[in-house]
């Protein structure tokens, strides 16, 4: 008989002999027990997770409520008497939106800032919405914007601003904030930030402020 045929017969005989072999019944019993245990384990966390979701929802609601209270409290502080006095002065500076912004006022502001440049550059004040809303409205129609003070650029000359100028809204990389000593959120480093650049009649940028 041919070797190949013998081998094939031998393999078939082996396969036929092993055909009835099966795993013992204990294996099935163990598997079913494990399956039941797994189902219990799967069901248990569902209850816990529901409770967790509720807890998180309540916590979120509380956080929102606290934020609203704090925000209102801060707004109340801004309206306190000394600042209200300033607020009364501000309406004089407000001009209609369609007119050219008061560059003289900006020049005065910038000049004041240049007379004391270092603290201003190192720690620019983040302007509160309530107090600076009117000024922001001079440049853009977005009344809800928050803007910093104008930060003078190195070659600022207040005299040039007396002749007029122009404020241009631009978008800058957020990294530009760091150049003016403003804090940068590294998570949003690649995003753009709005800024108003104050150009003089000489065509040079004299000051900049960042808008949110």
């Amino acid at each position, binding site marked *: 008989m041919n070797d190949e045929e013998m*081998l094939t017969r031998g393999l078939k005989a082996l396969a036929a002999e092993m055909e009835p*072999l099966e795993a013992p019944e204990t294996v099935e019993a163990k598997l*079913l027990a494990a399956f039941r245990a797994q189902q219990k384990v799967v069901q248990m966390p569902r209850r816990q997770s529901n409770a967790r979701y509720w807890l998180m929802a309540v916590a979120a609601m509380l956080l929102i409520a606290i934020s609203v209270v704090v925000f209102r409290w801060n707004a109340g502080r801004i309206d306190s008497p000394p600042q209200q006095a300033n607020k009364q002065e501000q309406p004089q500076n407000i001009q209609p939106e369609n007119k050219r912004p008061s560059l003289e006022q900006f020049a005065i502001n910038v000049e004041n800032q240049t007379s004391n440049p270092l603290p201003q550059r190192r720690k620019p004040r983040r302007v509160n919405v309530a107090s600076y809303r009117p000024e922001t409205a001079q440049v853009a129609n977005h009344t809800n914007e928050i803007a910093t003070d104008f930060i003078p650029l190195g070659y600022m000359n207040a005299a040039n601003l007396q002749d007029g100028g122009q404020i241009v809204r631009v978008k800058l990389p957020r990294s530009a904030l760091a150049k003016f000593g403003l804090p940068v959120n590294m998570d949003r480093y690649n995003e753009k930030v709005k800024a108003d650049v104050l150009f003089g009649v000489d065509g040079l940028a004299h000051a900049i402020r960042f808008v949110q």
Partner: protein
Amino acid sequence: MNLKNDLSDSELLRLMLAGDEESLALLYRRRQGGIYRFALQMSGSKTIAEDVTQEVFLFLMREGHVFDPVKGSLSAFLFGVTRNHVLRRLRVEQLLAPLGDEGDDDVSAVQAATDLCPLEDLTRAETIESVRKAVLSLPSKYREVVVLCELQDVSYVETAEILGCAIGTVRSRLHRARALLLAKLRPVAEIEETGSATVKSARCFA
């Protein structure tokens, strides 16, 4: 129950993953035989075969969602998982086995051949035993193709899916495996022939 018997493996798996115990039982009864035999033929150990069968279905219970019907049948998927478990288990067993038990594949084949008495080898059961030993003595990459294609009657395409290789590779490995098996079994056949001659002469003298 009868309705579920008609369901495909994939549908049973879906129901099982949704928490249906009956589907697991059906799927197990449908596939455990092949899995167990494959593990047994690969390892030569009933203990390993039992453990592996259990591990394979436990894996299916926990990670069954990784099965993709587009890539192949559930049967092929289960054979693939079984293969991985068996090979892992054999590696562990090889590390834990005493040095004396460890040997080259060819050496074990020769031992398997010479340990057999020629007269006893005439019986069918022992012929099967010699084939079984020869198969077990093959290197794992040849053993798995012999077990799948020759003993489990799995098609070349499915074998290729299970092993994660090309059909051509399956064919060439099977060819090589059969050549190795013949080489291992040939001494047995020769002894068999010599043995039968001895018996005849003994009878003449008697």
